[in-house]
């Protein structure tokens, strides 16, 4: 057992985490970065299509246009002060990434190329083929390997965070398990930045990796930080049937069509202007409607890329070509690709201000785990990569000056006792015929069934009851692996606990919001109701263990809410 100390602790080493760590280290802070997987395995690497660069390219328009389109896409639930910052500072982050070596695709004149993306009238999405997330993630990792940075920072690679440490109302770091030894340690810090990403595995299927289990969001909730907008779960229009693997919006950005079983480009009925590049929630609902009304095949509609030509596909969509070929035996240069809407992203998360600071002192968050909110009720594609870089940096830039000169009392080793007891109790449970995987699967399938694209009060209440049952099962289920080293069985158990907490928050918020806005569609309240619901729903665990729900007003600066049509 040991206690480690840092100025800044970053939890999660994806794009947001590494960007925050780099920025903090550049400001002279002593940084610790903990990740349950090696940094380049983070799910940021699965982002395919691109990153928005507002005001950067010649034809993308000024950053104000991006701010407007992001606000509109958010169905006016986004906080406009944060959105303005995203749009104003985004271009600089994209350029920084290029200067660090990201191999952005180019135009003939050597400048970075752009493609169109959903929800935006002009092309301002910069990209690296169809591997933009991976490309940027690897370059950030490279920057951390520079000797001056590498030697100054400590990376806790394959350490699993089990809980946050809160002392005297301040967040003071975390308790984490070294996965290689099974030992628990306290990693203390003056400022903690949570960059643990999303929670796609709460649903089944989803585009998300197996590691996306809402760890940071659940831990922040358990520590008493407010969590906001959890009902806003983005359902991506184009995912592969069965596995849920993502097919980038960039395909539609390069000109792909969406067809129903009659070969129609059905988006003309739902979004006559932007068609396939309307906002994601609009497209997903359109697809599901076509499917529900009998114009799909086997629960899918089709992505048509045949007219794009082999060369463009090989140059700009190679990854998609390979996924289609290897996972479903389809050659997208010649055949239609069946796709369906799938869970992809959580707009909600740990409530923060525009500097990534949550209401709990010492606790910051950035990236998908945070809710500033820049995405409101629906996220624009290629804004998430931007979000991670802008707010990852900002969190570090606020935290480092803030912690200068601050002294906190040391955290005793005994802080790990609570988690040690919890783990011992889990490991000691006898086999009872149930399994963690079964509970997770039941949770995932029922969440997809009852808290999906189209929500109704009876299904939501049903899900509430289901989650209660699942939780009862969870309290009793054990693990098969009783070892210390690399006990992934135990880690999955702890992750399931995080996921159940997140699922509860999603359902509670979905029941509460009695309107349809962005990604949240209520069949009993099909319209947007600005008079009563232009506000965020926040959930916060109280010291006595009960949950308080309250509302946070939306910050409106330039754009008054209007009817939203594409």
């Amino acid at each position, binding site marked *: 057992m040991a206690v480690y100390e840092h100025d800044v602790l970053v939890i999660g080493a994806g794009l947001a985490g590494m960007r925050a760590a780099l920025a903090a280290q550049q400001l002279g802070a002593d940084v610790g970065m903990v990740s349950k*997987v*090696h940094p*380049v*395995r*983070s*799910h940021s*690497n*699965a982002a395919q299509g691109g990153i928005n660069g507002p005001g950067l390219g010649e034809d993308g328009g000024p950053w104000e246009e991006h701010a407007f389109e992001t606000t509109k896409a958010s169905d006016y639930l986004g906080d406009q002060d944060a959105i303005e910052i995203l749009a104003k500072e985004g271009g600089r982050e994209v*350029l920084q990434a*290029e*200067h*660090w*070596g990201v*191999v*952005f*695709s*180019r*135009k*003939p004149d*050597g*400048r970075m190329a752009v493609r169109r993306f959903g929800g935006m009238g002009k092309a301002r999405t910069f990209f*690296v083929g169809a*591997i933009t997330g*991976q*490309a940027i993630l690897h*370059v950030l990792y*490279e*920057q951390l*390997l*520079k000797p001056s940075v*590498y030697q100054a920072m400590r990376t806790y690679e394959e350490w699993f965070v089990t809980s946050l440490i809160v002392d005297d109302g301040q967040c003071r770091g975390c308790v984490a398990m070294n996965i290689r030894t099974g030992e628990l340690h306290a990693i203390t810090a003056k400022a903690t930045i949570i960059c643990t990403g999303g929670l796609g595995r709460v649903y089944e299927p989803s585009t998300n*990796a*197996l*590691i996306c289990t809402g760890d940071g969001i659940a831990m922040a909730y358990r520590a008493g930080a407010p969590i906001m907008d959890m009902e806003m779960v983005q359902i991506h229009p184009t995912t592969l049937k*069965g*596995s849920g*693997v*993502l097919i980038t919006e960039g395909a539609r950005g390069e000109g792909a069509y969406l067809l129903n079983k009659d070969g129609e480009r059905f988006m003309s009925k739902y979004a006559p202007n932007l068609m396939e590049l309307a906002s994601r929630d609009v497209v997903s609902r359109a697809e599901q409607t076509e499917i529900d009304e009998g114009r799909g095949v086997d629960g899918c509609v089709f992505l048509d890329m045949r007219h794009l030509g082999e060369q463009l596909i090989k*140059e700009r969509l*190679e*990854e998609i070509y*390979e*996924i289609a070929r*290897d*996972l*479903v035996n389809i050659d997208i240069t010649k055949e239609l690709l069946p796709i369906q809407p799938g869970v992809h992203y959580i707009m909600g998360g740990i409530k923060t201000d525009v500097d990534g600071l949550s209401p709990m002192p010492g606790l910051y968050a950035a990236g998908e785990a945070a809710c500033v909110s820049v995405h409101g009720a629906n996220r624009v594609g290629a804004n998430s990569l931007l979000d991670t870089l802008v707010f990852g940096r900002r969190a570090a830039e606020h935290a480092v000056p803030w912690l200068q000169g601050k002294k906190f009392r040391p955290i005793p080793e005994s802080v790990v006792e609570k988690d040690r007891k919890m783990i011992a109790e889990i490991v000691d449970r006898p086999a009872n015929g149930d*399994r*963690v*995987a*079964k509970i997770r699967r039941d949770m995932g399938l029922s969440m997809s069934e009852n808290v999906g694209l189209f929500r109704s009060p009876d299904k939501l209440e049903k899900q509430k009851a289901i989650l209660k049952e699942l939780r009862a099962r969870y309290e009793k289920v054990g*693990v*098969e*692996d009783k*070892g*210390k*080293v*690399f*006990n*992934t*069985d135990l880690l999955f158990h702890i992750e399931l606990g995080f996921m159940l907490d997140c699922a509860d928050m999603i359902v509670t918020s979905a029941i509460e919001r009695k309107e349809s806005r962005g990604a949240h569609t209520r069949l009993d309240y099909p319209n947007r109701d600005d008079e009563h619901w232009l506000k965020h729903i926040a959930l916060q665990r109280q010291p006595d263990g009960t949950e308080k729900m309250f509302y946070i007003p939306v910050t409106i600066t330039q754009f008054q809410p209007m009817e939203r049509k594409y």
Partner: protein
Amino acid sequence: MKVKLKVKRTDPGTGETSYSRYQIDTVESTTLLDALIQVREYEDGTLALRCSCRSAICGSCAMRVDGRARLACRAKVIAITRGNQEHEITVEPMGNMPVIKDLVTDMELFWSKIRQVKPYLQPEGPEPEGEYRVPNEAMLDLTHTMNCIMCGACVSDCTVLEVDKNFIAPAALAKAYRFVGDPRDAHQVERLRQYSEYGGIWDCTRCNMCVEVCPKGVAPMNRILQLREMAIEAGITNNAGSRHTKIFTKSIEDGGRLNEVWMLPGSVGMFNVPRLVKEAPGALKMLRAGKLPLSQMIPPGAPGSHKISGMDRVKNVIRKSAALKPKKAEVVSDGA
């Protein structure tokens, strides 16, 4: 249909190895990863393996399948067994790395080699206001190398690494190419010099294993060969590898065939007396066995050196190939 798996286990405490056997129900689209996850979730929770994205982008799930390294999430079970239900798929951890537990290896060797090649862009001079202007061909060329997801398959099956842990190994050298080939990097010659030292580009034996096992078409060996060309062109020739290349080409240019006698001194250095003395017994054996033809005693380029008939055709081939520009990185179909 059912599939049989034979999975190598390593006990993390004692280091003892064993094999566990499982039978899993599969369908046409089932990947090896799907099957292993099923084992882990429903049959044997003690099985340890790394996996995350399920779509060949995170690089976590590289392992040896029937003796060859590959990504479990890209390996369709039916393709491995070819429909033969009796075929037991052997699943083992990656090679060339210590094993932590079951299919989880310690990849520190892999990462330390990546760090060795200075894997970050080193531009020089003031940063431009906008982006660096670079041709799209250069970026496309590098994108193929950037496809590398750091899975470790190439390092697992590298035959040089098996006998010499000093070799920087395919992944790091492919990464090295990514910087040498980037117009924005200002340290290309310095890099080439570093990679030309012992353990670098000249220690690859061109066995092609890394090309075969790479799931993303990075073709590390081809990058190594490109680095060799670039190093020679940059004048970095004071090493056995470049000298070997030079005496080889000189031999062909001069006489149309490989001059066995002069290959060795040409490669190790004409005045490398210690090395030549060391090889002398071997050379004598070859002489006695008739493997050192007298016709080759005259070095290539010297008057009277042996030439095959049809030298004009050889010279034609050489002239035409010299006129070709160096090949850009090609897309090699992946090893799925």
